[in-house]
C-alpha cells in the first residue's frame, strides 16, 4: 500500500499498524507523536490502529522554538 508520510509518498508491505510503521522507522523509543488523517493516534492505540492505502500520516517530534 502507499501512504503519505510527512508529506512524501511511502510504500509499505502488507497491512501494517501505526506501531509497525513506528518500528519500521526506528522510532519506537523516540519522543514522537503520530497523526493519521489529521487525527492524533495516541501511543497506547498504535498497535490497534491499522493503516490504509492513501492515509496521510504525520510523525512529529519536539524541536527548538519560541
Amino acid at each position, binding site marked *: 500500500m502507499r501512504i503519505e508520510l510527512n508529506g512524501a509518498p511511502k510504500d509499505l508491505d502488507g497491512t501494517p499498524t501505526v506501531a509497525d510503521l513506528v518500528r519500521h522507522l526506528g522510532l519506537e523509543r523516540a519522543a514522537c507523536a503520530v497523526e493519521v488523517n*489529521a487525527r492524533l493516534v495516541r*501511543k497506547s492505540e498504535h498497535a490497534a490502529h491499522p493503516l490504509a492505502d492513501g492515509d496521510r500520516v504525520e510523525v*512529529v*517530534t*519536539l524541536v*527548538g522554538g*519560541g
Partner: protein
Amino acid sequence: MNTTASAADRANAAANAACPAIPPIAIGGFTLRSRLVVGTGKYRDYPVMQAAIEASGADCVTVAVRRERLVDAQGRSILDFLPLDRLTILPNTAGCFTADDAVRVARLGREILEQLGNPGAGWVKLEVLGDRTTLLPDPVGTIEACKELVKDGFAVLCYSSDDPIVAARLRDAGAASVMPAGSPIGSGRGIANPSAIRLVIERLKLTEQGGSPDYPVIVDAGVGTASDIVHAMELGADGVLLNTGIAHAQDPVRMAHAMRLALDAGWHTARAGRIPRKLYANASSPWEGVISHIPGE
C-alpha cells in the same frame, strides 16, 4: 575577598533584607519560580542553548512541534540538552495559521510530553498567525482555538496582539494567560506601544474593568535587549517570554544573564514607586548655603 566583592555582598544582603523576594508566578495550575520564560529556537548549537537557559534562570522553556526528520534518526535531539526533571516544557503551536491546525499541533505536543512525563503536557502556548511576514496573531482564529483547547483540558497561554479588547476576549474564552506581543516576533523592537500594553494589563487586572489582579499577563515577543524586559515589567507585566533576543545575541549566555537581572530589576522598580516625570530640573543638592552667585537672583 577584595573590597569590591564585599561591598557587593553587603548590597545584596541589604537588598535581601529590605526587598520581598520575587514570588513565583501561577498560570493555570502551573507555578513557575522564574518569571522569565525562554525559547529554545535559533541557537547556533544545543550546548549554547543549554548554557543560556541555565544563565537565564528560567524553569520553563518553549518548544515547537515539527515533522520528525526521518532521514536523520541518529541526529541529536533537543531533548538531550533540556534537563526535563527541572524544566517545565511549554509546547507552542508556532507556524499554525488556522484554529484547526493549532488544535492538532497542541494535541501532538501534549502526546509527546505525556510520553516524557513532563508536566508541560497540561498546557500550550497558542499561536494562530495571520501571515508569515508580520507573524501577527489572527485574533479570530486564536479565540476559536483557545475555546476548543480549553474544552479539551489544556491550560492555554495565548500569544496576542497588544489590543486590550482582544485580550479581554481571550481571557473570556478561558485563556490561562494572555501574552501580548511587545512588537513583532524576532523584531527586537521592544515595547513598540507601551500605552497599548498598559491598557491590556489594566483591562485584565483591574477589578473595575472586570479583571483580576492575579490574572497573569506575560509580554511575549519583540524583546531585543535587557531594557525591554525592564520596560515590560515596569508597565505591570507579570513576566516576559523571549527567544531571539537571547539566541541571536553575539554572546547568548551573557545576554541570558542580563535578561535575568533585568527581570528582577523591572519587578522591583515597578513596586518601588518611581518619581513622576517633570519638565524642569529639581536639584539634588540643597540651595541653602550655596556660596556661589546664582544667575538672576
